[in-house]
């Protein structure tokens, strides 16, 4: 009996952490790594050229070149090359950025937290506000609140991210001068603790706001429309017949069910979110992956570009995976599918 229960406990846990879709994620990941390995080697000429670019090679000493060839096992068979590539990946080795003269992984690691902070917060805030507004708006469809929200959020959502960013920048940082123009922290201020956090938030506010404003519309509209459909469902009638007050119906029945399509849509929206973040970073010179990519492209730092793309895809994939897990938590029909 005990054993049986334990068995089923592990099974459920396993099912919860590794849904069937995990397989597809692993396949996607494998494909990306393979492409990353194969593409430079398929290019005409010396793979080192392909990997590092001409300019890098000019700056490179013979000694370095020899070391690189050894490192990538470029003088050995494809099989050995692949082993070397995988070993490198496992050690977090993405190559060497000749522009920054540092390991690519180190460079990316310096920028990634800022992007994650910006995009992550934008996602959380936009989703939360979008859902709440959507629920309220959908619940009283046709009211002035509803009509006003639909019109204004659709208007905002029609702009590209960077446009709103530039607009906010011009208004708050240039004209009103109440917000910092660029960066993630005030340089050389030497803040610590709370002051540092406030400083970070202050710098974050404008890019974050522009991202939230743009993302909001889609989530809001989806939630609202889902609410409108859900309110016509039989189970809502059952809830009303039970004597549930409006707020229960709004949030714990219709609202909770409307999370399902919103979650799915959010998952699909993540790549868009990331690209949005890259643009916004450039507008606000925010020192995240976007700015880094910008620099890397300008300097033709191929290893860095490749590393960034790799990291971005991995990030998107893992975010999607998390959303999948969340969806399973939300929808028992998926969790306990027969």
């Amino acid at each position, binding site marked *: 009996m005990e054993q049986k229960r334990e068995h089923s406990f592990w099974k459920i846990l396993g099912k919860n952490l590794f849904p069937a879709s995990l397989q597809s994620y692993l396949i996607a990941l494998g494909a990306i790594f393979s492409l990353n390995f194969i593409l430079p080697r398929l290019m005409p000429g010396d793979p080192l050229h392909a990997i590092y670019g001409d300019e890098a090679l000019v700056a490179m000493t013979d000694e370095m070149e020899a070391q690189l060839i050894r490192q990538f096992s470029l003088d050995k068979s494809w099989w050995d090359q692949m082993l070397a590539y995988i070993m490198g990946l496992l050690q977090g080795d993405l190559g060497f950025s000749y522009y920054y003269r540092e390991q690519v992984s180190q460079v990316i690691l310096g920028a990634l937290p800022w992007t994650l902070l910006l995009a992550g917060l934008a996602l959380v805030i936009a989703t939360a506000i979008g859902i709440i507004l959507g629920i309220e708006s959908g619940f009283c469809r046709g009211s002035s609140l509803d009509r006003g929200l639909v019109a204004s959020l659709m208007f905002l959502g029609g702009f590209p991210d960077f446009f709103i960013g530039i607009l906010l920048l011009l208004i708050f940082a240039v004209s009103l001068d109440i917000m910092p123009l660029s960066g993630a922290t005030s340089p050389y201020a030497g803040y610590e603790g709370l002051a540092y956090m406030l400083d970070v938030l202050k710098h974050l506010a404008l890019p974050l706001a522009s991202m939230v404003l743009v993302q909001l519309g889609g989530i809001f509209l989806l939630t609202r429309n889902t609410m409108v459909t859900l309110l016509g469902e039989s189970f809502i009638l059952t*809830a009303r017949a039970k004597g549930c007050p409006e707020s229960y119906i709004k949030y714990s029945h219709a609202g*909770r069910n409307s999370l399902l399509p919103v979650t799915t849509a959010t998952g699909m929206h993540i790549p868009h979110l990331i690209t949005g973040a890259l643009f916004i970073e450039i507008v606000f010179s925010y020192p995240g992956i976007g700015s880094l990519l910008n620099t890397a492209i300008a300097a033709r730092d191929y290893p860095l570009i490749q590393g960034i793309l790799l990291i971005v895809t991995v990030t998107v994939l893992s975010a999607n995976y998390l959303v999948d897990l969340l969806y399973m938590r939300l929808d028992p029909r998926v969790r306990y599918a027969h």
Partner: protein
Amino acid sequence: MLSIRDLKISFGKTQILSGIDLDLEKGECLALVGESGAGKTTLGLSIMGLARGSATGEISFQKKNLLALPEDELRQLRGREMAMVFQNVEDALDPVQRIADQIAEAITVHRCISAKNAGDMALRHLLSVGLNGEKARLYPHQLSGGEKQRVLIAMALVNDPDLLILDEPTASLDALTKADIIRLFRSAILGRICIVITHDISLAAALADKMAVLYAGRIVEMGRAESLIRDPHHPYTRGLIRSYPDMTTTKDLQGIPGRLVHGLSGCPFHGRCTQRIDICSRQIPKQRELDGRIIACHRGGIVPLLEISGLSHTFQANYVLRDVFLTLYEGETLALVGESGSGKSTLSKTIMGLHEPDRGQFILEGCSVIKRDAAFYSRVQMIFQNPKESVSHRMNVLDAVQEPLLVQRESSYEARLGRAKEVLDLVELPVDDDFLKRYPHQLSGGEVQRVAIARALALGPKLLIADEPTSALDPSVQAKILKLLMNLQEKMGLAMLFVTHDIALARKVSDRMAVMHKGRIVEEGATNEVLIHPRHPYTRRLVDCALGRYGMENAEIEMMVEPEPVVLEKYC
């Protein structure tokens, strides 16, 4: 306890309910029946205060007028004092919450109770509807339809409401589950006011003691459930019951012509009613109480078309008809069965005036029949076993069909031709010139009989007497002719006196059956009941023979003391 006065609900311009009056005491269960769109569900929802649209009138429950109550007070009554189980079991539960939680919620929204106690109560109630604790932790999609229905019942009962409304509660369940659920309902409705909304007559019969038939937002008939089902008085109720199969239905299912239209002036049913009169389309019939039945019909329900009383006829000092009483109602088929020589053909010919009776009276549509004039024959027509008897071999199809019109002095040829084509079309015959010019010998037996029927229908009669109309035909042709007669009845509201010796045939076409023996009507009643429980020994013998059991000799019946004829009340 629950009383509804002149309840009207309109949605935009359409009036969904137009003047409902209803009184229900504690312990009473009312079945609301009617086709979809009649407003049944709206009535249920409006009692719960959940109907959209604007309402006028009064719904008083527990001494409060629900229509005047502020929403918050109404909400507190919902689920506590009155509960509703909705149709569409599949979507009636929140898909993302455990069922026990959903039931517990029904408790917590009405009382101050800790979550744990509410959970325990929910479990107890689930147990009482036959779902154990393991099921309680499941989500709706993990339950079967029957289990979901149980959950919904538990949810409705959890606060012990005084009023329980069940909306199509068994619509999506299979027969066995349905039986279980009905058992559960039986105990659930005890001591409460209960309203069962359904179009399933058998469910209504199983649960309810009262039954109200709703048509286009009005109650057209209301009374005790079993008597209403056995003996519907309103034409619509009869149509509804005729179109619903149960295991004792013997007649083929018939529909009701036309479809439900809202917003008609006058009687809402008048567009589909086959016994409508002038006033029907002008004035709304008031609800009246007639024989313990509430009925809304200007004519007081289905009217008797032909009443025969005290009819006797002797032939060479022998009784051929002895004291015959028989009533034929509008739009029904009465089968007159009996062996040859029992007097059934004499009876039909006497009705037609082919024999002059010694004694007795005929009343057709309320007027005593003194002489058989053209007016009489435009209301009553007959078709014979041998179609040659009604269609002269010297007439072609067109002449045969238009002859009755000529007799009725329909002078214009165009009008006669038009009508002839119309009725030929009704009996599913071709109307091209070639066919119209054919003579009986050029037609098959089935076709001649159709021509005979068309000829009988030409004047639009209300009563068709069919004397063994198919016994001269092949079985397959016979089946087609019978189908045709049934369709004509449905379309035109034709009443039919179907004279036959073939009980099996009578069983398939008739609503009621009268058994003749030696010039007397020895038994009369609803066809299925006469056949299942024949009371007169002669009927029993006829049924036995039809079933292939040849027990009693004719002589045995002769020797038995002549029992009193069994004349049951109509449809009984």
